[in-house]
């Protein structure tokens, strides 16, 4: 019962408190001279957001970096010992290789597929239906997607009835096909896992790229057609350069998501058979091996890997702001 009370409190209380804070803050601010008001007002409105970000983003980041310099139970300072252990760990090298595979393949396939679907369905009658169908997997949680595809990839030896959709389908259509354990065989198991991620995220890329395509001015396209360009040339030389900023944003977003891939790997293979990724390794170190220091070190490695991507994004936003 008190859980219900807490939930109601959160849903009703938080907006109430925020509004109350703003209303009372404004009331007090109006008492001050206008110049002081203008100086303080932005901070009044930003304060809650900055406070929340500080508590839930900034502090954990700093604390994680600090914990990575300590031992398994965060009691003894060990300096860079965790990092040197990870640097010499062959398993981690494999994990990083898998993450790179995810970054390259996952990003390329989702963006390319999203672009192709967006272009092919643009201004067609079935556009909304097609986009809805492609976007639908996004409503499924990663764990749900992992479970679904685990059934799809299921394996039974040749001669026994196939319980996996993929093996059953290929057995029926491809002559001379023997069933495969898709999640066991390296390196195809990595691609099988990436396929699940692609299935979930292509909808996101499609929708955003489709919106960008709608922003293309018709006159430019018609001018190109008048100049004698065929559809392929229009696509390559006119469409793509015009939506290049959107493609860049979608790409960086997909790179960030690929680095976060955990649920799919954890549910389908538990990181076995050379499919381990950094996020899964961090989970294992933290919860199974009870080693907070090493888990924090892996988190810091992930952070360092993401920072360049974020920097590109931020620089792009700044440039766009200047252009506007």
């Amino acid at each position, binding site marked *: 019962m008190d859980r219900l009370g807490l939930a109601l409190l959160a849903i009703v209380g938080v907006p109430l408190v925020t509004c109350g804070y703003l209303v009372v803050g404004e009331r007090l601010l109006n008492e001050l001279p206008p110049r002081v*008001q203008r100086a303080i007002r932005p901070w009044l409105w930003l304060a809650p957001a900055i406070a929340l970000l500080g508590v839930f983003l900034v502090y954990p980041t700093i604390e994680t970096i600090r914990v990575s310099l300590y031992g398994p139970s965060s009691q003894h300072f060990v300096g860079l010992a965790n990092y040197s252990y990870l640097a010499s760990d062959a398993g981690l090298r494999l994990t990083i290789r898998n993450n790179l595979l995810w970054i390259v393949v996952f990003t390329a396939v989702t963006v390319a597929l999203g672009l192709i679907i967006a272009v092919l369905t643009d201004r067609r009658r079935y556009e909304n239906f097609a986009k809805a169908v492609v976007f639908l997997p996004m409503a499924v949680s990663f764990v749900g997607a992992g479970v679904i595809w685990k059934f799809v990839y299921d394996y039974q030896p040749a001669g026994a009835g196939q319980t996996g959709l993929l093996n059953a389908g290929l057995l029926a259509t491809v002559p001379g096909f023997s069933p495969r354990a898709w999640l066991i065989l390296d390196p195809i198991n990595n691609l099988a896992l990436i396929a699940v991620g692609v299935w979930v995220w292509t909808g996101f890329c499609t929708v955003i790229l489709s919106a960008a395509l709608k922003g293309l001015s018709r006159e430019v396209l018609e001018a190109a057609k008048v100049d004698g360009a065929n559809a392929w040339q229009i696509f390559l030389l006119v469409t793509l350069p015009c939506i290049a900023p959107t493609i860049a944003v979608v790409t960086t977003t997909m790179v960030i998501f690929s680095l976060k891939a955990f649920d799919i790997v954890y549910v389908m293979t538990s990181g076995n058979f050379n499919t381990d990724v950094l996020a899964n390794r961090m989970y294992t170190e933290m*919860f*199974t091996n009870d080693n907070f220091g090493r888990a924090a070190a892996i988190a810091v490695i992930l952070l360092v890997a993401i920072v360049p991507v974020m920097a590109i994004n931020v620089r792009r936003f700044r440039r766009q702001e200047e252009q506007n």
Partner: protein
Amino acid sequence: MAHEARTSTTPSQETFRVTRRAALRGGLALLAVPLLAACSQSGSASSPTAAPTTASNPTAAPTTAATAHATAAATAQPTVAPATTTSAAPTAQSASSASKIGGSVSVLATWGGNEQKNFEAMVKPWEDQTGAKMNYEGTRDLNAVLATRVSAGNPPDLAGLPGPGQMAQFAKQGKLVDLSNVLDMNAMKQQYATSWLELAQAGGKQVGIFIKAALKGSIWYDVKVFQSAKYQIPKTWDDLMKLSNQIVSSGKTPWSIGLESGASSGWPAADLIDDIVLRQAGPDAYDKWYQGQLKWSSAEIKQAWQTWGQIATNPKMAYGGKQYMLSTNFGKAADPLFSNPPHAYLHYQASFITSFIEQDNPSVKPIVDYNFFFFPTINSQYDGAVEGSGDLFGMFKQTDQSATLIKWLTTPQAQSIWVKAGGALSPNKLVALDTYPDEISKESAQILSNGSIVRFGADDLMPTAMENAFWKGTLAYVNNPGQLDSILSHLDSVQADSYKS
């Protein structure tokens, strides 16, 4: 945002022409919230409920089976069910308080599917008697889920502990309740063999108690198939290999092995290697090995892996080859023995597999259709070696409900319920031999209590990190037999690292 400077009124003054009413409303809102918070806090008494974390159960969905692989070790003889006289327990022990206490208790363990049903049946009489409710949650990633919840300060009231290794870790952190204040220890000392009690102790305190036992090292076979093919039950490992080769030469695969188990995949292979080490290298080497004093790359341990490799890495020996082994759940791996025609003939697994066999093959009956023979001798000086296991329960939060429930679970009446349902042995001496539903479980119970060299599963005695690396190592070995040396040296480095604390 408007860029022109406004001298008369600022946007905020226009949009937020604060009237007294609005200020009052805002002020009241600010005051009301802490009041609401205070009210809801006082409303919740010391609640025995713990919020079941829905995010903590990611691997429970795909299969119906769950691992009951929790084992513990004993260095003396644990007795299982020698009571030939009576199955009635002293009433003082079994009586929970007759008063209805209501409320609920949260329990976390690895059981799912049929095993979960049996556990719930075991708890039902307690629920009827106390009017309380058990909220059960099962997960195959018990190590991680339990550790997470404990460190988050949200532990279940009672939990099945993966093994004495992790139990000791929790006890050192001071998270487990000392059960000597909860259970009647005099009665426990009479009903449980000393070794069962000692195994569940850490730092001199009784922090856990076994409520179920199993015998490892049983090799299952289809009786009718063996009779018609006139196969002999092997008594030594060489005989077993001869039988396997005989089956291979008739064009069939003798063994069925399934290693998949979510985050704990590989544990059935670890069990087999434990058995081989015990019988091949002997109990002293076994003890040194699980205590981290014998290296994985030592001759004895490497030989054990290679012995197992005779079966596991030879595609002619194991049904479906490595693809089947690595992707098939352990609970389904006995099924190829009973298909028509059979795909395999031998299956190594602990005694609890009977409930899985009967669930998947309803027409198959014990003794008549399926039976087991005990693990053959490898080294005759270690004849009589027995590897057992048990399900260890611990208490994280002491409430009326959790205290009475754990007391109930230790009684012979409670344990008889699961024993009768099949697939379980009881560590309580007062559970009579005729409680066991069939000859198979009776035989398992007798073997467990009569063994001369008894040990518990080595992998569950190791620290969690070592155990995990062990499991994953077996998967890597099956996947890539040529990599054995590098696998063993990796296990050596984990061993050097994980026994430190």
